[in-house]
């Protein structure tokens, strides 16, 4: 092969890999991402039953019920609307009534939400950043946005 051909094969090979990777990335971005919603914008956006989303809000005071077994149910509210969430598993250390929570899972046909992941953040004033911002957009202020948290 001449120098030119070698260089061409190198460039073409590189482009092929890059193209393949770009395709993978686009495909993954169209399918493997989850959108964040608050209880009140669930109604406005068209979240399908069974679609994987993140639902964030505050855990309503007095709404946490334990059982049966390792299942915990609680209500997630953004003060405008409330959604009942049930979760089978161990809640994070920082999960509290009256504090911010982000849950990940699927909407059920009856309007409740089944979560398989619960993320809680620290501090009684804390609220997930996404939630605080979307509440601010709706004109609701609740606590301050904490600047410190723990992953999961």
């Amino acid at each position, binding site marked *: 092969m001449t120098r030119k051909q070698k260089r061409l094969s*190198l460039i073409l090979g590189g482009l092929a890999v890059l193209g393949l990777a770009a395709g993978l990335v686009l495909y993954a971005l169209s399918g493997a991402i989850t959108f964040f919603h608050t209880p009140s914008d669930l109604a406005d956006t068209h979240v399908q039953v069974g679609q994987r989303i993140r639902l964030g809000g505050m855990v309503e005071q007095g709404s946490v019920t334990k059982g049966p077994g*390792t299942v915990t149910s609680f209500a997630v509210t953004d003060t405008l609307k409330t959604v009942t969430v049930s979760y089978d598993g161990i809640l994070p250390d920082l999960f509290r009534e009256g504090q911010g929570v982000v849950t990940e899972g699927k909407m059920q046909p009856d309007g409740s939400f089944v979560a398989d992941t619960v993320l809680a953040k620290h501090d009684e004033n804390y609220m997930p950043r996404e939630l605080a911002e979307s509440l601010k957009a709706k004109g609701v202020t609740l606590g301050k*946005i904490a600047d410190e948290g723990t992953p999961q």
Partner: protein
Amino acid sequence: MNSIAEIGHFALILAVGVALYQFAVPLMGAQRGDVAAMRAGISAALLQFVLIAISFAALTHAYVISDFSVLNVVENSHSAKPLLYRISGVWGNHEGSMLLWVLILALYGAAVAVFGGNLPLELRARVLAIQGSVGFAFLLFIVLASNPFIRVDPPPIEGNGLNPILQDPALAFHPPFLYAGYVGLSIAFAFAVAALIEGRVDAAWARWVRPWTLVAWMFLTVGIAMGSWWAYYELGWGGWWFWDPVENASFMPWLVATALIHSAIVVEKRNALKIWTVLLSILAFSLSLMGAFLVRSGVLTSVHAFAVDPQRGAFILMILCVFIGGSLSLFAWRAPQLKAGGLFAPVSREGSLVVNNLLLCVACLAVFVGTLYPLALETLTGEKISVGAPYFDLTFGPIILPLLLLVPFGAFLGWKRGDVGLALKRLWLALALALLVGVIVLALNVRGPWLAPVGMAIAAWLVFGAIADVAAKTGLFKAPLATSWQRLAGLPRSALGTAVAHAGLGILVAGVIAISLWRIEVIVALKPGETAAVGKYAVTFQGEGPLTGPNYTGRTGAFLLKQGDRELATLHSEKRIFKPSGMPTTEVGLYQTWHGDVYVVMGDETTGGARAMRMYYNPLVNFIWFGAAVMFLGGLLSISDRRYRVGAPRRAAGMQAAPAE
């Protein structure tokens, strides 16, 4: 009240001036050929290190004696904390961690000044100047926007304490290692920029860059592994990697640094890929700067985001723009003047290293998109999304798998022109053994997906391929054992290092595949006396009692671990409440064996006096960290190679350096 904090403060401000001097004077000197000015960089680099070390020592002193007249100590320490965590608290916060950052930067600068005696004076002057400019930017940032020496008057009696989940031995040393990796890449960056200014890249240049990059890569490897180990046993989620943006921020420089240590070999041995290597050096440090920005600016919500402060974010963003933008502009302007290097066939050692670089960089790009896309989308449309593990499994996996397949091949291809047939002939035994492993896994693997046999075969392929590499080089089984042993002793350390690092990668892959596919998770409510089965183990909840530690209280649960009738251990999982903040944490009960861990977490109380428990059997999980340690060892072997030793790489000798094989 003492004045030690003020001494630290003054030393820091002096360091700003010295860094500016270190940037300007040697650079001018190198342009004008002024030897005295060029030499000035050496003493400036040493002085800068001494000043920052004084400053860092002063802050550490304030933490150790719990000097609550210093605001930074008040906010991040507590007198009841054990000494280790009072010290690690120094870098467990934004200001202190930035000080550690510049301390390590200055340490690298001083190392170049001291050990760079064999560098041409101009190159050393320019490298130190670029180092000085980076140091100047970050020192200015510390003094103006995140000063750790600000006093409070009147001083409070007690501090607020360090975030309890950071109070952990592995995490105490995670930041210094990680920073040593991040900042070490600044040396490669400085060499790249210096080469662009000089307009010259040759084999000797690569021989100087490679050990520094290797050191950075080794520290980065250990730092990331420590962080992952911490996440595994401290967060109580049983996972070891979450594709969290902050993890990705450290992983991206690692990927590019890995590419760089491979491409630098091509520059050194074959005088090719020069422009690409310079670009990689710039990119590697750019990514580590970007990591600093992502983590420190608070655009990400994370345990690492110590403080959300728009002013700080903007400052770091500015530093980022100046260095990345500046170096890339310089690259665009000067790179065409670098002479293109030698020729090689697509199937050759060089070719395989190009493929390695291509795949590593594309994999890094996929991680980059996944990490920044949510930020970009939110800024542009206001839509909030999270990109999690499914995205990365789908993109990173398929890109990295072919790379893993090619690793043993690459090592067997000759320089300039390789012979696939010959490589296969030498590798057939490794290939056969790897396929055998795949078949065994396929036979035993009842519920796992197709990835299990494939992944395990690839892991075995990497390990056996590395062994075959050493075997071929020492003539194992072909020559008498004594001869092979002699050859092994005479083998260049870098060749041995390559094989060891690749074997470590194989071990790591085995761990990753095993835990992703065969983990057993049990979530169950247990009353005292009740038993749950976790794989072949039985875990009995024996009951719980109160717990008192130095700076926390809580509950501890005892679990009896049995396999059949044999009692293996009593595990303890704790729920701790830390005193100053009232923050709860969980301690995991862990039973470790070489083939996997039993992992027990005590959860909240549920109905009827029971507690929710989460238990895992994590097969081969320790292979992950063991593999990382082996990779580190490979780096260590490679760096101890004779040709990287002080005095070895003279530029004149480098010009005519022949490939080692």
